[in-house]
């Protein structure tokens, strides 16, 4: 019978009137790989903060580590107990060497003010050998890839004598090979006795390594399950409490190619990409990170000019050197990173919506017509059903789903023929997702050509007329969703199957 490393019972936490966690129990076995899943805002980050001692739970909580009761868990005592969190930003020092990054916690702990470089190097070498990775110890960490930096973070945790490794969204920015490599390392760690807790929403990847899964919904624990018992549909049901029924889009495709790309290539990005997007069609481009799909989208939108190949809009060859050219040719793009690229969070909803069409809002004397501007913003808010407290409210005050609607609204304002959406439902609750899908489908029905880029096969399967699969910068195949069985889509590994050849 596996011993339990961490047991927490009766965990509750309230933040200014909102019950973030409500009587949650969790038990993690020693040496297991456990995963914590749940929607945005379900309370999993709060739970992690409590486990790592950053926040204190309310009265009535009981915590045991390896059978010993713990009364006051602070972040320092958590670290001493071997509980270490690796956050998504990795917290690596880019200007210091790999060895120094790895040895940093130990170095800071030591009593002597002098740095013993020999010890630093030895510790780093020891730890990397222990888990079987080879890292360039004397190179500056900032020069390494994200995957390697993650390995540095893991090595640092081990150097700090971690026994429970908590990783927040570990696979979010990794390519398929890098994910495989990470899992090899995690399994090696497990052999050496490490307990691992993942927090992730990338179900297809995590399911391949997690042994047990704890699902949190609205601050309560729904249950803990063996991962082999679960599939995509079951998991979504557990996370949301609802059976989300997706409907396939209607056939709104017209025969004309409104966008055609021929033999598009760019070194280090993608090679020889050709396809046609029809009027009224929703085309999905899918593939794992590193497949070149976002790079391709940015190229079509003018922000990453290709080296070879041509782009045609409505049959006419167009030269797109920057995104202003793209916009003039009827293109629009909602980028992947809403906070950094899609919206200006500190500015009002109105400012965000009209930014793309300010030229059309000028009065006779070439000044912005304030009333026209407000009217346009209000109209789009109404058309797209965006819930806002006020048109002047900063974009950051909106929910994820509504923020995404604003990000789309600003492109709808330009009346585009072609709209590219990269990761349209990232950071959006499952409830709000269907609303966004409906919005996309009605846009297509009105004649717009839409490209959805996503690594969630589910998403492109249910919402697209056609699917293009990319891998390592090449276009592998074209799929017709109607020829794929719905149950197969439920398999976490379906995308890997298509890219395996």
């Amino acid at each position: 019978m596996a011993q339990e490393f961490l047991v927490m019972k009766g965990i509750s936490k309230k933040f200014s009137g909102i019950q973030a966690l409500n009587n949650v129990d969790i038990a993690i076995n020693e040496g297991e790989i456990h995963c914590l899943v749940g929607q945005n805002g379900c309370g999993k980050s709060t739970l992690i903060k409590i486990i790592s001692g950053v926040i204190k739970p309310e009265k009535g909580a009981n915590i045991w580590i390896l059978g010993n009761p713990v009364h006051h868990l602070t972040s320092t005592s958590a670290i001493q107990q071997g509980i270490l969190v690796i956050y998504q930003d990795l917290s690596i020092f880019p200007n210091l060497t790999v060895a120094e990054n790895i040895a940093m916690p130990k170095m800071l702990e030591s009593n002597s003010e002098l740095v013993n470089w020999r010890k630093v190097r030895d510790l780093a070498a020891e730890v990397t050998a222990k888990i079987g990775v080879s890292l360039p110890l004397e190179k500056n960490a900032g020069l390494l890839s994200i995957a390697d930096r993650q390995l540095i973070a893991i090595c640092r945790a081990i150097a700090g004598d971690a026994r429970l490794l908590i990783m927040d969204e570990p696979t979010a920015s990794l390519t398929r090979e890098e994910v495989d490599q990470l899992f090899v390392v995690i399994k090696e760690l497990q052999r050496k006795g490490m307990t691992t807790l993942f927090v992730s929403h990338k179900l297809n990847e995590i399911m391949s390594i997690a042994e047990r899964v704890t699902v949190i919904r609205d601050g309560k624990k729904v249950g803990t399950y063996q991962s082999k018992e679960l599939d995509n549909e079951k998991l979504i049901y557990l996370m949301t409490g609802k059976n989300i029924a997706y409907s396939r889009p209607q056939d709104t495709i017209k025969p004309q190619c409104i966008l055609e790309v021929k033999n598009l290539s760019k070194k280090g990005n993608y090679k020889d990409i050709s396809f046609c997007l029809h009027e009224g069609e929703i085309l999905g481009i899918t593939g794992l990170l590193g497949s070149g799909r976002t790079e391709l989208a940015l190229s079509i939108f003018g922000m990453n000019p290709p080296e070879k190949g041509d782009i045609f809009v409505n049959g006419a060859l167009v030269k797109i050197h920057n995104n202003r050219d793209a916009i003039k040719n009827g293109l629009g793009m909602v980028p992947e990173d809403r906070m950094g690229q899609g919206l200006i969070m500190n500015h009002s909803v109105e400012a965000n919506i009209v930014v793309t069409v300010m030229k059309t809002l000028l009065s006779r004397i070439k000044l912005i017509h304030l009333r026209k501007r407000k009217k346009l913003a209000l109209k789009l808010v109404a058309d797209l059903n965006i819930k806002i407290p006020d048109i002047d409210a900063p974009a950051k005050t909106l929910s994820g789903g509504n923020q995404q609607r604003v990000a789309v609204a600003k492109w709808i304002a330009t009346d585009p023929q072609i709209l590219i959406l990269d990761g349209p439902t990232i950071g959006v609750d499952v409830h709000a997702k269907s609303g966004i899908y409906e919005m996309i489908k009605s846009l297509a029905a009105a004649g717009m050509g839409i490209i959805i880029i996503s690594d969630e096969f589910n998403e492109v399967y249910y919402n697209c007329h056609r699917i293009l699969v990319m891998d390592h910068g090449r276009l592998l195949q074209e799929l017709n969703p109607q020829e794929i069985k719905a149950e197969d889509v439920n398999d976490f590994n379906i995308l890997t199957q298509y890219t395996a050849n």
Partner: protein
Amino acid sequence: MFNKQEPMGKLNLYFRKNSDIATLSCVLAAVVLLMIWLNPGQFLKSDNFESMAFQLPELGILALAMAVAMLSGGINLSIVASANFVGIVMAIMMTKIHGMDPGLLIPLAIITGLAVSAVIGILNGVIISMLDVSPILATLGSSMVIDGASLIITKGYVISGYPDTFLNIGNGYLFGIPFPLFILIFCIVGVSVLLTRTIFGQSIYLLGSNTTAARFSGINIKAAIIKTYAISGLLCGIASIIMISRFNSASQGYSTSYLLITVLLAVLGGFNPDGGFGKVSGLVLALIILQIISSGLNIFGLSSYLTLIIWGAILLLVMGVRAIGVKYGK
């Protein structure tokens, strides 16, 4: 969708949305009352207001130049150097070119001066946007180059002796109001309209807040930044006209304390040094507040060095208040 609001409600809403302006208005009222209470006889005299109306404009225009740069997320540390240099250029034209009708010479000198100031601004903008240099270093570097050029040209001397008509700009009246004040009002209105009612103005707010998202929205970042610093430079040129006309001389070394004061004015006026926020109306209120404090201090006969300390302290105070405000806002 939204409730209809009665007039008082609208006023409340305005003040809540523009809390900066509201706070500044209160501070202004408090300062005025304080000055009147401390020294009623002197303060309320009309020539006190008059001398304010002459000094205030050049400072206000330079503060606008600083504020515009800050709005884009940068800073312009070369405003004083630029103003001095442009002043020297105009002074040389007006004093060394003989045989030209002053009616032609003066406008020519002014136009040349403004053109030079705009060019300096464009160069700053190019270095920042195309060479990817941080605004602090770019404008520090350019201020040194400009100061160097000023020194080389003047060899440390002061250039003076302008035609009378030119002196009227800095010292004359129009309809009983000092002419520099008109120029200031013109600049205030101009910059305000530029920022709130033109595409360019709106673009600066957006790119100052999040340059990447602004780029993704189709805003031409490089062009906008170059224009920003060009306008900043142009404003320095305008301020320079008033300055040399008032002093009746041009030199490399003038107004070095103005740099601190313009930063203070911009920050006090609600311009966020990180960019993206700030209103001209706030700057105007800050200008009035600072001018009143300054006049009050002059009346007390305080040394000008002491005022430096006070400005420095006020800047720190303002940042402290803002920091607390941010913490409580969360």
